[in-house]
C-alpha cells in the first residue's frame, strides 16, 4: 500500500534540471487557468517553458468522466527544453478520471498529488475504477500524496460569505499554491494576477488569494516534502521582466505577425475567416486589437472567407485568412484565382488529423501535399512551415513579405500542436523586422497590368481608386504583358512557365537550414513543422549516447532553399520524420533522387523523444 502524507527523503533545496508537470481534472476545475499561471510564473523567473493543453472535444462533456478530463502540461527548465515533455515528473489529479487518463504518462517514482475528496464511489465508477487506487496497490510505483483539497479550501474560506459551490471553485488555487511552494515561484505575481482578473469581484479575489496561501502554507507546514525544488534557469533565454515578454501560442504568434507585417508595410490588415478548430484563435486574437487598420471579417463559410481576402488583396490590403485542412480544401479554387490574378495573400493552415473531419482536436502534418498540389492546373505557390509556437510569428511574417514581394499567395503550415502549445516570447520592435516595401503602381502612361519586375517577375500592384490604371483581372488566362484575356496556346505555355519561374526563383534568396547535432555524421535526420523540438532533443541525446546524427529542419518547403540537395547528399543515410505517411519524404525523393527513409507517426499526437530515438536506432542498425 502506498503510504501517503509521508515526507520523502530529499536533500535540501535539490536542484532539478527540468520539471514536467501536468494539472488535470474535470472540465470545470479551472485546470487551464491553473496550468497557464504556473507556466507564466516559471517563465517569469527565467526558466524555458513549453506548455500543452488538452481538453475534451465536447464543450460540456459529462462531469467526472474520462471524456470530460481537462489537462494542462508544462515542461520547464534550462536551455535544452524544446518540447512539452514526454513523461510526467508530477501529476496533479483533481478527480479519479484525471488520474486514470494520465497515469500512464507519469514517470516511475513520480509524484502524484490527488484531491482525495473527489474519490467518491460515484466518481470512481465514472472513471471505471473497481476499487479506489488510493487504497489498492495500483499506485505503488509512484509517490502519491492524497490531500483533502476540497475540505481544506472550504475550511480556509469559512466565513468568506461564499456558497459551498463558490468555495469549491477556488480549490485550483489551493493546488497552485502548494505547487508554487514546492517549485518556488513569486507569490506577489500571483496576487497581482488574481487582483487584476477579479478586479470587479473582490470577494472572489480574496477567496482565491486565501486558497492560494492555504495551499502554499500547507506545503510549508505539512511536511509532505522536505524541501522545495529549485529548477535550473535558462542561460540563453533573454528574459526581460519589464517589457513586452508574453506567453504565446502559435495561433497568437501568427496573428501578431500579421499585424506587425501590415504595419511594417504601411498597409491596412484584412483577415477573412471562418471558425474551424484549431485555427479559430488566429481570427479571435486579431479581434482583440481594436484599431482602424486591422479589419476582421467573419464570413459565411471558408469560400467567402478567402473570397473576401482575395478582394481585399485586389483593393490593396495585406490580406490573410486562417483555416484548417477541410477549410483549405474549400479554399483551393480561390487560392488558384490569386495564383492567376497574381495577388498577395497569406493563408495560414493550422493542420489537424484528417482525412475529412478526421480527428479535429488532434494534431497531424498531413496537409503538405494538399498545400502543394491541391488545386487544378499548374498552380505554384510558396509554402512555409513553422517549427515552434514563436516560429509561427517568423513564418507568418515571412509569408507576408514574400506574398507582397512576389505578388503571390503563400501558405503557412502550422498545426494543432503549435496552435495550442505556448512558450515565452518577446514581440520584436518594428525596427528589428525585415522591411516589406510596397510599391503601388501609379503611373498611367504605358501601364500594363502584367508587365513584370525583371528581378522578381512580380507584376505591379495596381489598386482600384488609382486614376488611369483601370483594368480587369480574373481567372481567365492572361496575355503575358497586357493582362488581357488570352486563349492563345503559346501565350498560355509562356504564362505557365512564368508563374512557375517566379516561385522557383525564390529558392536562391532562401538560407540553408542550420545543421544540428554532429554535422560529420553519416546519418541525417530531416524534419519540418512542429516536430522540431522532439527531433532536436532526440538528436542531442543520441549524440550524447555516442550515436552520431546530424539534423536539419526545413521551414521552406516550396521552393526548397537553393543548395539543399547538395547538403543532403553529403550524408549516406537520410531519414525523414513526419506526422504523416511520408509527404516531405516523397518530395525529397522525387526532387533530389535520394533514397530518403521515413519515420512516421499518425496517432494525433506529436513524436515523443524516445520514439524518435528508438525508431532511428532501429533504422541505423538495419543499415549497418
Amino acid at each position, binding site marked *: 500500500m502506498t503510504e501517503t502524507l509521508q515526507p520523502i527523503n530529499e536533500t535540501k533545496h535539490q536542484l532539478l534540471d527540468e520539471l514536467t508537470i501536468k494539472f488535470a481534472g474535470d472540465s470545470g476545475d479551472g485546470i487551464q487557468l491553473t496550468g497557464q499561471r504556473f507556466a507564466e510564473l516559471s517563465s517569469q523567473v527565467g526558466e524555458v517553458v513549453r506548455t500543452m493543453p488538452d481538453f475534451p472535444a465536447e464543450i460540456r462533456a459529462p462531469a467526472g468522466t474520462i471524456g470530460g478530463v481537462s489537462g494542462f502540461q508544462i515542461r520547464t527548465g534550462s536551455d535544452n527544453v524544446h518540447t512539452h515533455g514526454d513523461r510526467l515528473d508530477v501529476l496533479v489529479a483533481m478527480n479519479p478520471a484525471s488520474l486514470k487518463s494520465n497515469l500512464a504518462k507519469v514517470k516511475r517514482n513520480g509524484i502524484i498529488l490527488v484531491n482525495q475528496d473527489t474519490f467518491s464511489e460515484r466518481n470512481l465508477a465514472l472513471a471505471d475504477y473497481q476499487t479506489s487506487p488510493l487504497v489498492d496497490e495500483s499506485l505503488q510505483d509512484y509517490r502519491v500524496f492524497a490531500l483533502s483539497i476540497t475540505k481544506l479550501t472550504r475550511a480556509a474560506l469559512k466565513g468568506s460569505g461564499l456558497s459551498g459551490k463558490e468555495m469549491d471553485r477556488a480549490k485550483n488555487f489551493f493546488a497552485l499554491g502548494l505547487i508554487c511552494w514546492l517549485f518556488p515561484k513569486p507569490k506577489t505575481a500571483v496576487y497581482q494576477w488574481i487582483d487584476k482578473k477579479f478586479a470587479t469581484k473582490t470577494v472572489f479575489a480574496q477567496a482565491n488569494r486565501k486558497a492560494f496561501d492555504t495551499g502554499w502554507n500547507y506545503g510549508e507546514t505539512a511536511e509532505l516534502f522536505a524541501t522545495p525544488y529549485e529548477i535550473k534557469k535558462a542561460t540563453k533565454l533573454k528574459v526581460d521582466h519589464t517589457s513586452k515578454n508574453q506567453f504565446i501560442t502559435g495561433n497568437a504568434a501568427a496573428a501578431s505577425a500579421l499585424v506587425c507585417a501590415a504595419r511594417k508595410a504601411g498597409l*491596412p490588415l*484584412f483577415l*477573412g475567416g471562418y471558425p474551424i478548430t484549431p485555427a479559430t484563435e488566429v481570427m479571435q486574437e486579431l479581434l482583440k486589437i481594436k484599431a482602424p487598420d486591422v*479589419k476582421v*471579417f467573419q*464570413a*459565411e*463559410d471558408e*469560400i*467567402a*472567407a*478567402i*473570397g*473576401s*481576402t*482575395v*478582394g*481585399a*488583396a*485586389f*483593393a*490593396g*490590403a495585406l*490580406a490573410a485568412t486562417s483555416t484548417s485542412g477541410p477549410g483549405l480544401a474549400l479554399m483551393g*479554387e*480561390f487560392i488558384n*484565382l490569386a495564383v492567376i*490574378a497574381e495577388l498577395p495573400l497569406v493563408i495560414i493552415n493550422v493542420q489537424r488529423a484528417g482525412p475529412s473531419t478526421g480527428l479535429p482536436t488532434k494534431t497531424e502534418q498531413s496537409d503538405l501535399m494538399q498545400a502543394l498540389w491541391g488545386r487544378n492546373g499548374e498552380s505554384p505557390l510558396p509554402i512555409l512551415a513553422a517549427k515552434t509556437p514563436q516560429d509561427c510569428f517568423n513564418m507568418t511574417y515571412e509569408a507576408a513579405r514574400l506574398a507582397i514581394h512576389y505578388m503571390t499567395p503563400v501558405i503557412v503550415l502550422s498545426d494543432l500542436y503549435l496552435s495550442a502549445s505556448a512558450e515565452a516570447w518577446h514581440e520584436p520592435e518594428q525596427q528589428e523586422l525585415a522591411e516589406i516595401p510596397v510599391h503601388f503602381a501609379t503611373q498611367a502612361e504605358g501601364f500594363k497590368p502584367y508587365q513584370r519586375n525583371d528581378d522578381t517577375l512580380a507584376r505591379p500592384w495596381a*489598386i*482600384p*481608386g*488609382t*486614376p*488611369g*490604371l*483601370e*483594368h*480587369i*483581372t*480574373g*481567372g*481567365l488566362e492572361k496575355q503575358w504583358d497586357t493582362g*488581357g*484575356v488570352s486563349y492563345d496556346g503559346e501565350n498560355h505555355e509562356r504564362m505557365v512557365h512564368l508563374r512557375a519561374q517566379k516561385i522557383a526563383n525564390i529558392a536562391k534568396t532562401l538560407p540553408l537550414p542550420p545543421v544540428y547535432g554532429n554535422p560529420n555524421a553519416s546519418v541525417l535526420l530531416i524534419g519540418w513543422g512542429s516536430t522540431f523540438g522532439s527531433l532536436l532533443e532526440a538528436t542531442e541525446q543520441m549524440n550524447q549516447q555516442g550515436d552520431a546524427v546530424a539534423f536539419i529542419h526545413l521551414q521552406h518547403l516550396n521552393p526548397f532553399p537553393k543548395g539543399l540537395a547538395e547538403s543532403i547528399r553529403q550524408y549516406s543515410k537520410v531519414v525523414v520524420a513526419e506526422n504523416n505517411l511520408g509527404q516531405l519524404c516523397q518530395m525529397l525523393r522525387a526532387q533530389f533522387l535520394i533514397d530518403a527513409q521515413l519515420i512516421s507517426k499518425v496517432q494525433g499526437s506529436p513524436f515523443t523523444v524516445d520514439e524518435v530515438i528508438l525508431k532511428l536506432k532501429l533504422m541505423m542498425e538495419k543499415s549497418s
Partner: protein
Amino acid sequence: MIANLASSELTRQDFLSNCDPRWCPGCGCFSILRSLTTSFANAGIPKERQVVVSGIGCSSRLPYYTSAYGFHTLHGRAPTVAMGIKLTNPELSVWIVSGDGDALAIGGNHTMHFMRRNSDLKMMLFNNQIYGLTKGQASPTSPPGLKTKSTPYGVTDNPVRPVSLALASGATFVARVHDKDNAMMEAVMDEAQQHKGAVFIEILMNCVTFHDGAFDHVTAKKERDSHSLQLKHGEPMIFGQEREKGIIDRQGQLQVVEIGQSGITERDLLVHDAYSEDTALAHRLALLEYPDFPFPFGIFRKVDAPVYG
C-alpha cells in the same frame, strides 16, 4: 469655365472599354450594359472608383466591357470578393454582376449573406431562367415544365423567387426591371447608385439562344401595359393599356379590379409604399405573377438601415 465643365462631364462612352462584347447577337446583356454605363455617367463617380465584380456565366463577362476596375471571379463567389474590396476601401462603389445560376444556385449562400448584412454592395441579377454559357441547362429560376438539356422531361423543381429571397434576406434596396425598358433600368440604377446598403436588382433578361421569348408576355411592348405593374412609391397601383385596372387590398387579399366598376375609384386602390420598414406589402407584391396578376416591376423596397463595415 463652361467649356471646362462640359469637357469634364462623363458620358456613357467613358465607361465602355475598347473590348467588343462577345454575347450572342440580340442578347439582353447588351441592353443592360448600355443602361449600366449610362447610369455610371449619370452618377458622375469617376471610373477609377467604380468596381464591377462578377462571377461566372454569360452575364459575368460584363466587367470586360466597361472601363472601370473589374474582377471576373469564381462561379457564384462575386459577393465575397466584392465584400473584401468594399471593406478595404469604403470609398469605392462596388457592383456585382451575376446570373440566376451564379447567384441563386452555386452562390446562393453568398447572395443571402451579403444582403442580410446590408453590405454596401449593389448586385444585378441577370435572370434569363437558363444556363447559357454551358449551353442550355435548367437554372434555379427555370419555370416548371421547361424542357432543357438537363431536364428532357421538363423542370419539376419549384423555382426560386429572387425578389422574395432578397426581401427575406434583408436587402434594403430591392427592385425588378427588364432588358426591354432602358428608361426603367436607368432610373432604378440611378437610385441604386445613391443608396447606402445592400442593393438587389433582378433584371429579367432574354436569352436569344436557349430560352428565347421567356418574358415576352410581360416585357414585350404590346403586352407590357396590360400584363405588368409599374411600382412607384406613393402612387396607386394602376395598370392596363387604358390604365383601367388596379390592385386593391380586400381583407388582406390583393385583388385585381376594374376602375369604375362596382363603384371602385382610384382612391380605393392600394398605394405603393417602398419606404416602409414593414416588408409585408413588398413580400405580397413579390408573389404576384401573371396571369392571375400583373407582374410587378420597379422598386419594391428602399429603406435606410445601418450598413455593414
